[in-house]
């Protein structure tokens, strides 16, 4: 197995495991905070997947810094030696959105705690059927 294959299994495996573990926490854990933790782990997994997919072996970060320009001379040559910047941009957005959702979720947890005096999701079932 080549290094790349190992890395492929490692990164994809880790990311998907993170998603699965996050989902597991969300579905089975009774504690509200644990559920929110699960959500944020899930998000992390997705983000890792994005960056993994955007990576191109032996290429550098997509920044045309003076040192890079000095190395490759032309913009075209430099651009050929860079990883895919789009997933990075998307993940940037996704991380911020994930943080926003987490913050809102935690605020809801606090309010639920005030209202029901518990963080057990099984006891918060006023609305049903």
């Amino acid at each position, binding site marked *: 197995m080549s290094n790349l294959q190992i890395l492929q299994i490692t990164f994809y495996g880790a990311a998907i495991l993170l998603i699965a573990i996050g*989902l597991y926490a*969300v*579905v*089975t854990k009774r504690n509200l905070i644990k*559920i929110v933790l699960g959500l944020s782990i899930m998000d992390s997994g997705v983000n890792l997947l994005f960056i993994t997919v955007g990576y191109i072996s032996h290429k550098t970060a997509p920044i045309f810094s003076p040192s890079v320009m000095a190395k490759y001379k032309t913009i075209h040559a430099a651009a050929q030696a860079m990883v895919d910047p789009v997933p990075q941009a998307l993940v940037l957005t996704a991380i911020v959105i994930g943080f926003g959702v987490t913050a809102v979720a935690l605020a809801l947890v606090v309010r639920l705690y005030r209202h029901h005096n518990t963080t057990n*999701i*099984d006891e918060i*079932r*006023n*609305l*049903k*059927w």
Partner: protein
Amino acid sequence: MNTLVVLLLILFGGGIIAYFAYNIHKIVGDIWLVLVGFAASIYYIGYLDVSQVLNIHLAGFVLTLALNSFSWIFGLLIAVLLPLVALYSIPYMKGQDRLGWFYMLFLFSVGGMYGILMAGDWLTLFIFWEIMTWSSYLIVIYRRSEDAPRVGLKYLIFSAIGAYSLLTAIVLIGANVHSLSISKFFEVLPMHSLGFKVLVGSLMLIGFGVKAAVMPLHVWAPDAYSTTPMNYTSMFSGALSKMGIYGIGLIVINLYYHSGISLAGEIVAWFGAITAVLATYYALIQKDAKRLMAWSSVAQLGYIVAGLGIGTKLSVFAGIYLAVLHGLFKANLFMAIGAVERQAGTTNFSELRALIRKMPWTFFSALISVIVLAGIPPLSGFVGKWMLYESMITSGHYVIVVFLFLASVAGFLYAFRFLFGVFLGQEEKEFEHVKEANPFMTVPMLLIALFLIVLGTFPGIMFKYIARSMADLGFYGVTYKMSVLTNDWGQSINMQYIAASLVIVFVLFLIVLTWVAYKNSRNVTTKDIHTSGEPPSEEDNYHFSENFYRPFQRAFAFVYKYAITPVYNEFARGIEDFFQYVRRLYTGNAQTYALYVLLFLAILFLIAKNIH
């Protein structure tokens, strides 16, 4: 301007204006109502141009307004009833609130009926059908009585069942015939497959059958007819139910007889016959005049459906004739009951008695109507039944004849019960103050009674139009004479002779009877009951109106044991229970919902290979 549109505008516009008119003042509203009633009626009879056709392009469909002579005859019935009911309504509805609302809906429903009759395509028919349905529904629940929600919902549900099957049929027609025109549909129908014909035909029949109260779709009718204010019930039972008859006529004749599925017509006839019998027997055991007449309506509609279903020239002729007659006499009877209700305050047989001398004109018109209903010779009901039986015998439907005959006998019984329960018997102190109804109420009733007498003596007046309308259904060369009925065996009856002779006998009999009765009678209150200290039990026949036909009821107990209503109720409850259980899917636990999502995703993954 197109005269058909004008008529619809008179009714719908009149309805909207009536709402505001009643909000200004009751008198203004009343005047407006009568004005609209007469205007519509006169316009219909005198100025309507039957040959006119109007095509409206709306929403990608062609809506056609066109009247033919078959529908014209039903329109005529409405045109006769509308002004009379309008007049009658003025005193009848006195003291009710939300009159504007009531009359707006009233005129809307009449407009809906005319729309149905004018419809040249199924979509127009359906639109007006629904307008008629919801406006009549709103009238059924107009009196906020305790029963109203239940009755209204029942009416609405059955109407919706009917409307939906109609709608299904219509969209199937649209998809397969590529035109919604009614005449086009009947033209091309023979070319379609049997399955399509049967499917569309049955759906349509269910749709129209609901309004015509054919069993087992009649459940709503007794309740709705008896809960509604009587002035509307007279339209409801008199005219609105005829829309169902109109539709059944169209379908049975055009669909079945002209495209070769006569068996289906027979089945319809059987439904009609069974309805007639069972409804009559239910009418017998009613304790309330309204309900009795409501069941009677169901029964009479059964006759008509049976007649249409047989589908011979004569039976259809008889069916249409009976339909017009039923419209008149049933309207009259409901008006009479309304008058009684208004004057005496009740329509319950066990409370009412001997109103004959208090309300003679009401009695007279009711009497005439009952005679027509029972089909006793001098009057027109006899003519209709005569023709109906004849048509059935000549076409070999002996069993149906027996059924209808049974129904007629029992029909006579309930007619008698009605007369006796309301108008005859011994007088009571508590009804001493009762006076004859307002002339606005009696005059329309008497006018209808007069019509009935004339139609009995000179049935040919009506025959002319019916014969014309038969041509529209594809029966040509219908012959008739003014007052002579001829049967296939060559015997004939001249109605004028019969009428004259019977009227003389009848009048003499009445005079003698009354004189004798006066002489030997003694007034004892009916509530003067001696039970010798024993508390009276149900079994004690302490009022003559209780258990009027008890022996009869016992004899036919096996009929009364079975009722369709509980079946429907059980069905509804079953559905509700089922969903009560299904509802638990939404457990209220967010994690369960999340699990559903994962399950859904997993299932999709499993079937991923099949997605292509």
